[in-house]
């Protein structure tokens, strides 16, 4: 009997099914690790759709005039691409997948504070996702407003706005509940001895993110409800003909959607802060500065939304204020980059796959960040606003930042999650092709933007043809890299060689438990007696 018990205690979460079979062992499980993987598989499925739409856009832009689609189809394609990528992928992305999987383990807990609520969040996420994707197929054609649903067009267009807006509204609940769950988990379930300043950086970034999820998401919820109200009841909140204010919509939308950028990027920064010390074999440089900068980004990030609206007709006072605040928010981000580079300095660096993703993250994030400063400057913004420059900047930050960190985190924690190691040679091949494709795809957009090519147009002047060809070819190269990465990980999850408990030599709690972890992570809740990231 006791032997059996011991055997049960050592069963991994993948073997422990709770007596359920097939899909039910996944969709009825309240284990945070399985829920993390549910999010991973859902997000990757939507990602395939989002990438396909993105590639279609690039194919359209490979030559001037109609190549594979006309104006209306192009408008719909970039709208649904944006809605899927933002609301279904990058916002839940790292918190929902790696936050769910790693947060309880990293703080020495058996699960999140509210496991059932956690599963409910996933169901809400799926319901919202289905609503969004259904807008592609139902009634009057896919929405064509862009992912920002700007009023007054969003309540005047005859396309399928309601499912898309309602879907985004429903997804907000999932985000709020996840944030609430993580906040309570971090406050209440840290292992004995794990004081705030002994907590690893990834949970810290999830903590900052959770506050944003909790406090900012309701604002977009209300805003989207107002759009629904406009469409159904013709109220006139944002309709100038009825005394409404369309700029108010932009304020309300960006009050959420700018902090949402930090929902995307903070956990990405957290994952990078885990990877770099592990592969530099060095204690993280400026742990407290990283924590303070995390909270500073989360806080100041609330007040910079107006830089998305510099040409909307806002008052001069507001323009000036938002520009100043935007420059301020760059400081804590720069502190992080400084800390990562300093951690590497004189470290014993092993350039393994996760490190390559982390290093390339810093590279693309720097380009994204510095071009963000260009956009934050009022005078220059007028020139490049709504051009391809913004698309380039945005993708360097959101895809380069969150995407690279996501793949870095996936390669870093993959052996822990599946208990198997991937083929490192193929992983490196996938990474370098992806990286080259990424730069080739988005790099030319800066040039095109400076030269004045507007974004969200299916057509362009012949002068812009060359860089557009390069960009479209870059998309194909990047997709090739992506396919290699996915096939390698998929095959390795099923038949890769068994991974050790601590293949990278990490110091945090996740590397002190078996790979894959047992159902409740720890036989006994550990006691923490030393600071994190300590290397001998």
């Amino acid at each position, binding site marked *: 009997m006791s032997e059996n018990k011991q055997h049960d205690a050592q069963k991994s979460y993948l073997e422990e099914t709770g007596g359920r079979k097939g899909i039910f062992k996944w969709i009825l499980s309240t284990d945070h690790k399985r829920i993390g993987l549910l999010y991973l598989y859902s997000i990757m499925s939507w990602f395939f759709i989002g990438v396909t739409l993105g590639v279609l856009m690039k194919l359209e832009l490979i030559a001037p005039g109609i190549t594979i689609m006309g104006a209306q189809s192009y408008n719909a394609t970039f709208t649904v691409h944006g809605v899927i990528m933002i609301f279904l992928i990058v916002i839940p992305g790292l918190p929902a997948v790696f936050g769910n999987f790693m947060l309880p383990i990293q703080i020495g807990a058996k699960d999140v504070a509210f496991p059932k609520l956690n599963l409910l969040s996933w169901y809400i996420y799926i319901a919202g996702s289905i609503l969004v994707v259904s807008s592609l197929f139902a009634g009057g054609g896919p929405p064509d407003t862009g992912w920002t649903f700007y009023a007054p067009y969003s309540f005047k267009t005859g396309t399928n706005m309601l499912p898309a807006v309602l879907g985004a509204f429903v997804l907000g609940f999932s985000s709020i509940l996840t944030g609430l769950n993580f906040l309570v988990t971090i406050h209440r379930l840290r292992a004995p001895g794990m004081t705030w300043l002994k907590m690893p950086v990834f949970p810290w970034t999830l903590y900052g993110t959770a506050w944003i999820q909790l*406090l900012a998401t309701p604002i977009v919820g209300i805003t989207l409800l107002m759009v629904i109200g406009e469409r159904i009841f013709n109220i006139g909140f944002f309709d100038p003909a009825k005394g409404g204010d369309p700029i108010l919509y932009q304020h309300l939308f960006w009050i959420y959607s700018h902090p949402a950028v930090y929902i995307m990027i903070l956990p990405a920064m957290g994952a990078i802060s885990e990877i770099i010390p592990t592969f530099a074999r060095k204690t993280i440089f400026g742990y407290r500065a990283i924590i303070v900068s995390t909270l500073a980004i989360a806080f100041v990030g609330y*007040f910079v939304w107006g830089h998305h609206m510099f040409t909307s007709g806002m008052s*001069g006072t507001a323009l000036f*204020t938002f520009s100043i605040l935007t420059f301020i928010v760059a400081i804590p981000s720069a502190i992080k980059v400084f800390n990562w580079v300093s951690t590497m300095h004189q470290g014993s660096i092993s350039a393994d796959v996760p490190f390559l993703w982390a290093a390339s993250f810093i590279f693309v994030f720097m380009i994204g960040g510095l071009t963000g400063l260009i956009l934050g400057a009022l005078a220059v913004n007028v020139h490049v606003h709504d051009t391809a420059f913004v698309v380039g900047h945005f993708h360097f930050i959101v895809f380069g930042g969150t995407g690279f960190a996501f793949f870095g985190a996936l390669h870093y924690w993959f052996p822990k999650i599946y208990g198997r190691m991937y083929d490192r040679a193929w992983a490196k091949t996938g990474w370098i092709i992806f990286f080259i494709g990424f730069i080739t795809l988005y790099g030319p957009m800066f040039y095109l933007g400076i030269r004045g090519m507007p974004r969200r147009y299916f057509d362009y002047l012949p002068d812009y043809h060359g860089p557009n060809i390069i960009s479209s070819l870059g998309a194909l190269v990047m997709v090739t890299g992506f396919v290699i990465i996915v096939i390698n990980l998929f095959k390795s999850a099923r038949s890769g060689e068994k991974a050790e408990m601590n293949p990278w030599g990490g110091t945090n709690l996740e590397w002190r438990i078996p790979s894959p972890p047992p159902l409740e992570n720890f036989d006994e809740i550990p006691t923490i007696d030393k600071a994190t990231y300590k290397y001998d």
Partner: protein
Amino acid sequence: MAEEKHHITSYKTYLLVLVALIIFTLLSVTITQIELSRWATVAALLIAGIKSTFVLLVFMHLKFDLRIFRVMVGLIISLLVVVIFITMLDFLFR
């Protein structure tokens, strides 16, 4: 096991707050009949603010809860005030 002390609010208090909420709701409807121009929004927000305070303090038990919760709610409300203030920098100076 730590013993927790729960405050029990009387029905009379709940009833009084309910009556106050109804009065303030009627008031917010009534002031729409008065020409207050730009101040109409301020008045409506003020009344809504008073109503929310009642709900937070009594119905949500913030008045009887630990100080830390009052501080947290206070910080969040401050955040909201700053966000509205910054928005007004556009609206009022446009």
